[in-house]
């Protein structure tokens, strides 16, 4: 795995590094002999710069949900079935009985 990705993974999964102070970062970064620009981006928490240095897209579309009413197959199975067109509307009396 790429050394920078390895480092990010370590920062993400190691509890002792999860909220490491910037002043402590060199103890983790120095042994990896990373490019100085990469080190700078990590120091400055500049993810846009880091993305550029890794030659990757920083701006990504992360919306994967449509806004409109779900298609019929997405609806919950326990929705009440629609009444046939000729079913009379419930009388006010019936509604009061239910309440």
């Amino acid at each position: 795995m790429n050394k920078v990705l390895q480092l990010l993974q370590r920062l993400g999964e190691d509890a002792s590094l999860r909220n490491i102070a910037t002043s402590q970062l060199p103890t983790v970064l120095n042994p990896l002999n990373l490019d100085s620009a990469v080190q700078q981006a990590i120091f400055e928490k500049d993810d846009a710069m880091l993305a550029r240095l890794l030659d990757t897209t920083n701006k990504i579309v992360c919306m994967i949900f449509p806004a409109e009413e779900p298609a019929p197959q997405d609806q919950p199975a326990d929705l009440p079935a629609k009444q046939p067109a000729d079913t009379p509307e419930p009388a006010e009396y019936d509604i009061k009985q239910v309440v």
Partner: protein
Amino acid sequence: MQQAAGVDKVGSVVCVGTGMTLGSHISPLSRSYIEQADVVFVLVADGITEQWVSQMNSDVRSLQSYYQPDLSRMLSYQQMVAAMLTEVRLGKKVVGAFYGHPGVFAWVPHQAIAKAKAEGFAAHMEPGISAEDCLIADLAIDPGTYGCQHFETSQFMFYKRTIDPAAYLILWQVGVAGDRSLAKLSTGEPYRQLLLEVLAEHYSLTHQVILYEAVTLPIQQPRITRLPLAELVNAELDGKTTLVIPPATKMIPNQAILDKLAALQAYEQNNQQPE
């Protein structure tokens, strides 16, 4: 190639969640599915995380390319599902790796699994740590305390919903509020004014709300911006921003039901059989 018990065709699809934060949230099982797949389709919240997932398998394909400027996202989603199903039909073990939880506010994984199952292929979902999970932790709120309603922001605007201002209201994808074309990656002030119009029916414009963005890289801090509701119109929002509206009113006791419950309890106590 794989044929699971109880299904009649070779080929499968598993949609896994990578969680929100690189390295922090992916489950051992989800990682194992990615590593053992014949082909992995990936859709995550940033390019670095995409690169990280790409190093877990020799055949990782980004779904980002299906988003095109001015193209309805619905069409993009359908193309993503089609791309995954094509590989399943070729008899491959397909994995869809989606950021957060693959089943929360995510149309593509649900559709890919439903279609694969309908065609007789093995298909299932593995959960992940969602943006909602991170929001609860970072904002230190418990949805059980006052209750919590979640809506996709545009859908919230398109339909008449019953809002309970005594509960939390969480609106996702607020950066594209009101977009009916599904082709915009952000909507501007006039759209937010209309959102405000809907919210103003239930909340004061001075009510303090929160804009939240979860951490995707472990070098970041979550975005937690507190502001009066009225300032939402000019706030900086993007695809990752979530609007959190804390309760604005007190819960009103349902006295009629409380009285009936008290009567029921008294009846039970009076009719207890002696031991």
